[in-house]
Every structure is written in C-alpha cells, then in structure tokens.
C-alpha cells in the first residue's frame, strides 16, 4: 500500500471509530455495507488528491464538526410565494410535527428512517447505486460515507406530474450538529417533479441526492444554501438521465464557511437535457466549490453548466467542471461557462475546466473568466444619474443574470434575483 493511501485510510479509521451504522432491514443494510466497503478502499481525501487541490477537506475529515451558533431565521422565508408541500429537517432529522403530511398527488413519499426498517423496498435499486456509479473515474469518499451512515432522508417516487413542488427545509438547532441526509428520487417515465431545498441546517452538513430520471421525465431542482457564515456543507447530486428526459438544477449560495457542491450527471438515453447552474455570493471567509462531472453516453444530448460567483473581502471561489463525451455519443452539445466577479484585490477564483471527448461529431464549448466591475459601464450608469452603489449592484446582478436565467419558473427566478439583490445591499453598503 502506498504511503498516500495509508494516510487516507488512517484519517478514515479515526472518523469511523466515532460513527456507528444505523440498524435496518436487509435491503438497506446491504447497501450500507457496500458503501462502507467502497469507502474503506478509498480512505478520506487529502490535499494531494487532484480534486482536492483547491479545497482543504480537513473540516469534512474531522471526527467532530467545529461548533456553529445557529443563525437567526431568514427574514423572508424562502419560496413562500410558491404553494408547496413543506417538509422540515432539524439538524438533519425529519421533524414530523412541523411538516405537512407525506402526501402529494402523483408522488409516493416515505421517510428513509421508516423504509429502512422493512426487508425490501423499491429504493433498493437506486439507494447507493447511482452514488457507486459516480465514483468512477473520480472518487467521492464523502458520498460513500453518506450512503453508509445516513439514517434519514426521503425516498420519493414520482409516477405522474406532481401536483405541487416538494420543499425540503433544513434548520439548525444544535451548535455541533453533524447532519447526514440521503434522498432518492425516482421519476418514472413521463413524470415531472420540482424539488426545492433551502438552508443548510447543521454545523456540518453532508447530503446526497440520487435522482433517476426515466425516459421523457422532467426534474426541476432549485435550492438556496443559507447565509449562516460558519457552517460547512458538502453535497452531492448523482443523476441518471433516460431518453428525452430533462434535468435542471440551480443552486444559490450565500456565504457559509465552506461549501462544496458536487454533481455527477450521467446522460444514458438519447436526446436528454442536463442543465446545472449556480450563483454564489461570498463575503469575507467564504470558500465555495462547485465540482461538476457530466458524462455524455448517448446521442444528441445537450448539457449546460452555468456558474457565476461574486467574491469580496478575501472570499475564494472554485470551479472544477468536466464534460466527458464517450465513444458513440455523437451530436453531443456541451456548454460550460464559469465566471467570477472579484469586487476587490483580495478575493480569488480558481477554475479547472476539462473536456474529454471520444466521439468525432460533437459540439463542446467552455469558457472561464475572472474580472472586476466594468468601470466604463459604471461611469455610463452614473452619468445617467444612478448613484455609484446602486450602479454597482445593478452590474453585479447583471453578471449573475445568465445563471439565474437557467431557472425556468419565473416566480422562483424572481425570488432568487431578489434574494441576491438584498444580500448585495447588505454586504456592499457599509
């Protein structure tokens, strides 16, 4: 065994000594055992791992999370303009008393903690399976750790067009909460669901979302990751897309000590669409990392990655995005853009765009830029009577507009825009 792997496994051994796997029926126990075996083979990451060069995994490796004082509730409750089924998780545990009942026309909903008690479940074909699939060629140990130890989450089977969006609300109560949440969404052929998530809701938060989008199905995902400045979060999305299916995910992140959002989108059916976007605003002490992997394994699929970050007072933004086009995935259309707006000289943007293409009839483009506010545009706005701060905010929002524009629903898009605007007003008027 190499010294490097040995060090990774020693880190893992310390972590595992403090964890215990939840009890459950045979289907979930088997999945958890498989995940633990995967994790033990990988160990926990270090800075010398290619995909952890820019982000130090120490906070995720630590046996216990650093204490975080729970932030005050949002002045404006997210997604309040949307009629939805509201489900609350406090410190990563489902709060049945405050949640709506697990009923939604077109959808079957069950809590993982309940389903885990049975001997079989439909989710057995997906739970940990999409995650395992997403471990190659890049290892994602915290996702395997999640599968092995998650005690709560939701298993969501969508059989038709869901009557309303499903809204998962994460809140923090304990200063040292260490949440591990695992959700599975199975969209059957032709079905449709909008999933909303908001808050990070723990001192340390680890979530995995596995989404299987069958032929002709549509999945919309919009999430906001709260503004509590000390919390740490690592999230993974693993999605498989069937023929003519659509997957659209948008994430807004404001502050947070450390946020790493990973996504592995596997296009396995012809004519599928995978769109993933993010708008991040970060002030002092923020580290935000988007690590995206898109696999084109079928013909005529389209993928879009649109990531924008506004950074100030020493905030650091990271983007690692890859498009892999497999042999035979002809007529692939892949687009990737990652851009940062640095509001001062102290902030930093690190980007690693990658393309790997084994088909000969494809269209793939990628671009990455980093810059300051356009002084000429600022002067132009001011010469028309717009005060400097207002003009700057307008230009920052204009910079974020392409990412926000990836949200199909106008009400949700407008809400995200308003939230970003009020964040900018709070953080730039001082």
């Amino acid at each position: 065994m190499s010294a490097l792997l040995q060090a990774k496994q020693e880190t893992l051994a310390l972590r595992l000594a403090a964890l215990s796997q939840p009890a459950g029926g045979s289907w979930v126990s088997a999945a958890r055992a498989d995940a633990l075996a995967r994790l033990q083979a990988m160990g926990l990451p270090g800075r010398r791992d290619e995909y952890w060069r820019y982000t130090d995994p120490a906070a995720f490796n630590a046996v216990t999370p650093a204490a975080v004082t729970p932030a005050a509730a949002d002045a404006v409750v997210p997604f309040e303009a949307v009629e939805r089924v509201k489900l609350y998780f406090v410190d990563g545990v489902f709060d049945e008393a405050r949640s709506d009942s697990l009923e939604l026309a077109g959808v079957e909903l069950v809590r993982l903690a309940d389903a885990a008690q049975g001997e079989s479940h439909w989710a057995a074909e997906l739970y940990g399976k999409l995650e395992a699939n997403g471990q190659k060629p890049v290892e994602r140990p915290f996702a395997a750790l999640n599968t092995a130890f998650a005690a709560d989450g939701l298993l969501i089977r969508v059989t038709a067009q869901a009557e309303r969006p499903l809204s998962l609300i994460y809140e923090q109560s304990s200063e040292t909460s260490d949440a591990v949440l695992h959700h599975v969404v199975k969209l059957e052929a032709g079905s449709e669901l909008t999933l909303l998530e908001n808050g990070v809701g723990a001192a340390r938060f680890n979530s995995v979302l596995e989404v299987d989008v069958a032929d002709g199905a549509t999945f919309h995902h919009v999430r906001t990751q709260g503004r509590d400045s000390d919390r740490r979060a690592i999230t993974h999305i693993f999605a498989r897309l069937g023929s003519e299916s659509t997957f659209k995910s948008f994430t807004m992140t404001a502050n947070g000590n450390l946020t790493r959002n990973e996504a592995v989108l596997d296009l396995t059916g012809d004519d599928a669409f995978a769109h993933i976007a993010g708008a991040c605003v970060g002030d002092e002490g923020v580290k935000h990392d988007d690590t995206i992997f898109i696999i084109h394994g079928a013909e005529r699929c389209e993928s879009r990655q649109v990531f924008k970050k506004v950074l100030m007072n020493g905030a650091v933004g990271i983007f690692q995005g890859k498009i892999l086009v497999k042999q035979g995935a002809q007529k692939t259309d892949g687009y990737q853009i990652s851009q940062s707006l640095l509001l001062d000289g102290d902030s930093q943007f690190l980007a690693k765009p990658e393309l790997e293409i084994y088909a000969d009839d494809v269209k793939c483009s990628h671009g990455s830029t980093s810059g300051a506010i356009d002084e000429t545009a600022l002067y132009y706005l001011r010469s028309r009577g717009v005060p400097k701060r207002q003009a700057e905010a307008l230009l920052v929002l204009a910079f974020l507009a392409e990412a926000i524009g990836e949200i199909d629903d106008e009400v949700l898009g407008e809400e995200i825009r308003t939230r970003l605007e009020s964040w900018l007003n709070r953080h730039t008027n001082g």
Partner: protein
Amino acid sequence: MLEIRNLHVKLEEEDKQILKGVDLSIKAGEVHAIMGPNGSGKSTLSYVLSGRDGYEVTEGSATLEGEELLEMEPEERAAAGLFLAFQYPVEIPGVGNMTFLRTALNAQRKLRGEDEISAGDFLKLVREKAKTLKIDAEMLKRPVNVGFSGGEKKRNEILQMAMLEPKMCVLDETDSGLDVDAMKLVAEGVNALRSEGRSFLVITHYQRLLDHIKPDVVHIMANGRIIKTGGPELALEVENNGYANLLAEEN
C-alpha cells in the same frame, strides 16, 4: 446656463495637458457647436463636464446654472440637469434597456427629492418617446446597447435624453458612424427637444450634422483652446477650407 471659465485639464496618469484654458458661455435655449481637428480636446471637454475618471482639473471652473459641476459626482451632475450623449455608447449585458431607463429616471428624481414615476406612467412615456425615434418594443427589451447597430445606439442615446429631460445636453460626435438617414432621425430627435429652457453643446468633426441641427454659435477648438467663435457661417468655412487656415491664423 453653462459657464466654463479658464478650464485647464491634464491626464491623471501622465503629465499631459489636454485643455489649456477653455472659456465658453451658453445661454438658456441656445445651441452651440464645437468643431475641431482630432486631438484638439473636444471629447475631453465632454468627459470632464460629465465627471469621467482619469482627468485632473488643474485650473478653472464649469458651472451649470451657477452650481459648480466639477465638485459633483457624475450622478449629481446628471440630477442637476447635465446629459452627455456618448460618442461610443456603452454595452451593458444583463441589464434590460427598460430597467436601465427606469432606474436612471427614478434615481435622478430621488436625488432631486421628487417622487418616483409610477410603472404605468413610465411605460406610457417610454412608448411615446420611443415611437418618435423609431425604437421598437424589441429594442427596449434587449440589454442596453448589446447587439445594437451604430444607428440604434445613437438613437438610444437620444431616447435617454428625451426621457431624462436634461437642461444642458452635450452631444459628443453623435454623427460618427451614422449614414444620412440615421443622422436625420437623430437630428429630428434632438430638434424635437429644443426649447427655451434647454441648451445644447454639439461636438462634431463635420459640418454635415449642423445642416440638420442648426447652431446659434460655432466655436473652433484647437490645441486645448477655443481659437475662434462665430455664427453658422464659420462651420461652412471649415467645410470648404478645412482647419489649416484657421490654425495658421492662430499661429
């Protein structure tokens, strides 16, 4: 209206004097033209009046209705009634033209202590002004100046002027890059705004724009100063003989 006295300006970055004592007095309702060869300081004068960074006023003053412009922020100058139609209008991706116009109008009103315009009144106003400048609904929806042709950009400048109703309008080479039809349209837009209480300073290389926007006074600028002032016939003289004779007279 606008009084410029002994204005001296140098570039901030290098020790280069651009304006070397400009005097100019424009009364309410008058249209003045400034003509001059390249590098004479015409555009610098317009930038300094509107407050662009990068210039240092070393001497002199510029007042608008008695208020010192040079001590104001660019947005305060706009609220005080100054407007510069840019030679190169700036593209702002991500900001819709309508949002831009409404933000500017309301910001100026706010700076002047006035109420914001209602959404309904704004729409009515912008549609009416846009129509006369042949600016269609599509152009109003697009991001500011993005993908606009040269003529569309200049018409968009005049639309902003019409919406903001400034007292003192400075037009910096508004005719550059325009064909004859586009120039006529722009000139008509400007002429429609002429009134007793509003003054214009038209900066141009060529006499042809002045066929459409008739000036009361014409100034010739060279080497950072105004070297000659006269009536509209001065513009014709330049058209026929170029600047060489005038420059020779000066030396």
